[in-house]
Structures are given as structure tokens and as C-alpha cells.
């Protein structure tokens, strides 16, 4: 049994993960129908795969690579 909620687990680890170069976000998602922690990265790298855990406080950690996020007015900034 996990001793913590996933919200608390995210709160404890988010700052640490956001400080890693290439990490652009964190959140709570689903993995096989159950809650998981999510780390958004600009792109996959072996270094991030090595430095990010597979499980944190009993919750699976899913890594999502989607590039950088930009606002979405017409002619998006940054594109």
C-alpha cells in the first residue's frame, strides 16, 4: 500500500524533475487505467531516461516527449 497520495508525490518530486535540463513539465496521468506521474520532456534522451525514475513513491513514472509548448494565437509564437 502506498503511504501517500499521488498529488503529494507529485508535489514532492516536481521541482526536482523540472530542474533537469530538457524537462519542460510534470503532471498526473493514467497508465493502464491507474494513476501515474508524468514527466514532459522536449525530446527523449538517454540522459533523461537514466536520471528519471521508473517509479516514484510507488507510482509509475511516464515520460512524454512533445517538444516545447507555445501559446496558440494565429501564427503561433515560436513557429
Amino acid at each position: 500500500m502506498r503511504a501517500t497520495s499521488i498529488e503529494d508525490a507529485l508535489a514532492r518530486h516536481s521541482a526536482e524533475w523540472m530542474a533537469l535540463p530538457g524537462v519542460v513539465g510534470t503532471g498526473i496521468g493514467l497508465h493502464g487505467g491507474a494513476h501515474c506521474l508524468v514527466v514532459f520532456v522536449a525530446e527523449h534522451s538517454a540522459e533523461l531516461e537514466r536520471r528519471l525514475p521508473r517509479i516514484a513513491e510507488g507510482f509509475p513514472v511516464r515520460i512524454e516527449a512533445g517538444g516545447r509548448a507555445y501559446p496558440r494565437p494565429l501564427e503561433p509564437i515560436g513557429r
Partner: protein
Amino acid sequence: MRHISLSARLPLGAVVSIALLAACSDQSSEPPTGPRIQPAASAAADQPDIEAALQAKAKHLARLMATPGVTGVGVGLNPAGRAVVKVFTERPAVAGIPTDLDRVPVAVEVTGRAYALSNPTTRQRPAPVGFSVGHPSITAGTIGARVKDAAGNVYVLSNNHVLAAGNDGLIGDGTLQPGPYDGGTDPADRIGTLSAYEVLNLGYSGYGVDPPSNLMDAAIALSTTSALGNSTPTDDGYGTPNPLIYGDATGDTLFDNPSALLGLAVQKYGRTTKLTRGQVNEVAVTIDVCYDLFCFTVGRFNDQVAVCCAGFSDGGDSGSLIVSNDGNRNPVALLFAGDGTRTYANRIDLVLRRFHVSIDGSSSPPPPPPPPAATMHVGDLDGLGTSQGTTWTAVITVLIHDAAHAPVSGARVTGKFSGALKSTSCTTGSTGVCTVTRSKLRTASASFTVSGVTHSTLTYAASNNHDPDGGDGKTVSVAKP
């Protein structure tokens, strides 16, 4: 921490040149207005039967157009590259169409009828939810919702970077519908004035420095019920958003359990991608959002909602309201950003609470459908590669048709080459044709996607796009020569 101006950095590049292409119209035989461009995949202009097809079309045009179910007639090429008379029909198996005319083959193409679907880039009063809007110094975003305060005042709800130009706006500035990129001017097209915005906290990020934190990119503009509707378009929208937010059984105007949003099917109607559907994939999201090209200026957004997947939104959809994809249409989030796989949105409960407003879902009559509008579409889209030794140039030729498949002059075509940072535009000449080019290419291929077409009197109906070469009339690829 600093407040960053966004309006000065919005790119709007354009390269224009004009050429002629023989395509599915008899107008293609007019003298060229620029260098003659040959279609990459055919030798249309060299076909000796083009003239015969044009003559056959002219001779039989009136009779064909009088045939019930026929919506247009033109001249094009069949897959073998032979000139044919093209007959466009609103349904399959229209009777009375010959297989050939004066020994020129007839090719039937079912295009449907050119209905006047809502065009959210146009001006409309009252302005529907999901239509183009913007501060005078930006390009365009989306009307998220009509919201109201306790006194009954109504407001446009959208993003700070849409209504307040990313902190540049002053309270009282105009709110234009459509947004400036879509032709809105101040004060003629005002539907409101900037009333309040949550300041965007943006700053440098990197080398151990965290960007400033935010909860939302949101603003409201004071409006009226005569200028602003509270429903998405009646023909292709989702209806009126529910005044009650999703998952608030306690009625305290906050989500009872934000994690309950996970997996929720959602929808939105936006200025660019119109009605799209997705799913909440992540909640409690912290995401760093780049507010300049090189991502030097960043805002960190906490407690966000992430919606999957690519295609749910695109540039111009900023400010759209995301609601549940069910009969209830409960508000969920305010769209403001995205990356390659996700759309990011602010929690709508926090946004509404910030401005002390609620979604105005009262049962006022929905906005009337747009008046019948003459439409235009892409009638041909071709690409050609020319070599310059170690580099090459892609030349894209676009033909714009009206609803009767006649060439349209003065249409401004905008699109983007693969790998390009900026869009490119050109304006059609008397033959309905214009070209865009991208030079110094070193890639094995390049593609060009038409993102929009504007005209002083005609409305772009992308769903009617067609290409006699078999493409969709929206994207064309060119191989390195």
C-alpha cells in the same frame, strides 16, 4: 520577473510571385501573367487535346449545368494525363451525364454542394462563441465564452495574449471581432473593451533559474448581448456551454476533484480548427511555455489541464473554451498553449473565480446561421522542383476556384512550407493562379500546406478543395529534382 510584449514578435512573412498553370478551368488558356510553371506530375499544357476539351466544355456547358445534380463544369486531366471535361456533382450517380463530349472523355467528380458552412474568421453579430477575436495589436485568437458578472454585465472570455496582447494592452482597449489578421479594424469591428486580465509573469529560464509562475493566461472584455452571442455556430458547433462547470456537485464553483478530469472526453470550437474532440490526459500539470521564438522568455504554468492529442488545436485557437463531450457540455478549461502532442489549458474554475464571473449559458436564442456566402476553394495544387546545383527550389502553384469552379482573382493564399518558420502568401491574378517558392533547399523533398485563403467577397471553404492530380488540394509534396 518582467512583463513581456508579445505583439511585436508575431511573424507574418510573405513571398509573392505569380505564374500560370493549366488546370481544371478553361481560363487556363489565358496569357500567362508570369513565368509558366509546369505541373510536376503531368504534362498538362503539352497535351494536344486541351483545346478540344475547352471547346467541348464551352459548347455543352449550359446543357450540363442544367442537369439536376450538376454543380460545376471544368477542364482537367485524368490520371493518364489526358485532358477531360470535368463534371462536378453534388451526389454519386447523377443521371444524364454523357461519357464523352465530341470525343473528349468526361470525368465525373462528386464534390457535394458548396454549402455556406460557418467561417469563424468572419465578422458576425452577435459574434458566436469560437469565432475570431483579438486585441488591435495581435493577430487573432478565439472567443472562449460569454461570461457574466453578478450585476449582469457580459464579457468576452479569452486569453491575456489574445485580448490584452500579452500584458501590452490597456484597460479600455478595443476587442475586435474578427481579430486583426482576419480583417478586424478598430473601432469599426469592436465587440467590447478590455476589462481585466491576469498579468502574465514571464522571464528568463535556464541555468538553474526557474521561470516565473502562473495559473492562467486569461482576460475578459466588456461586451453586450447584441454584439456577443453565447453559442457556438448552429451548423457545426457543439451548442451552448453549460453554465455549470464540470464536476462541481458541491456548487462551490471549484472542481470537487480535479483528478476526476483524467480520461474525460472533451471538445472545443476554435477559430482555426473549429470543432475538435480530445481527451484529458493529464491534470495537475506544471508546464513551461515559451513566449518567444527562441524560448528565452518563459512562463511556468501550474495546475494545468493537458488534452490529447495533436490536432486538437492549432494557432488561432487560443482562448477556446474546452467543454465535456457529452450532452451537458460542462466547461472544463481555457485553451492557451500547445506542443507536438498536447493542448494545454487553464482550469476553468480558477479562471471564472479570478474574474468573479460565470459562463452565460442562459437560453437566449442562438446566433442565426451565417447568411449564404459565396465560397471559394483550391481547385488545383501543384509543385515543381528546380535544381541550382547543391540546392534546389520548390515552386508551388495554387489555383483558386469559386463555387462554380471558375478562377478567382484577388484571392490571398497563405500556407507554410515544411520546415519553415513563417507562413508564405501570394495573391491570385486574373487566371486564379499564384505561386509561392522556397529556395536553397537541401532536403530530399518539401511540402506545402495551404492554411487559409481570403478574399474581399468570397469565403474559403476548405472542405471543397480538390486537385485534378488526385491530391486533397490542401497539401502538396515536391521531390528534390
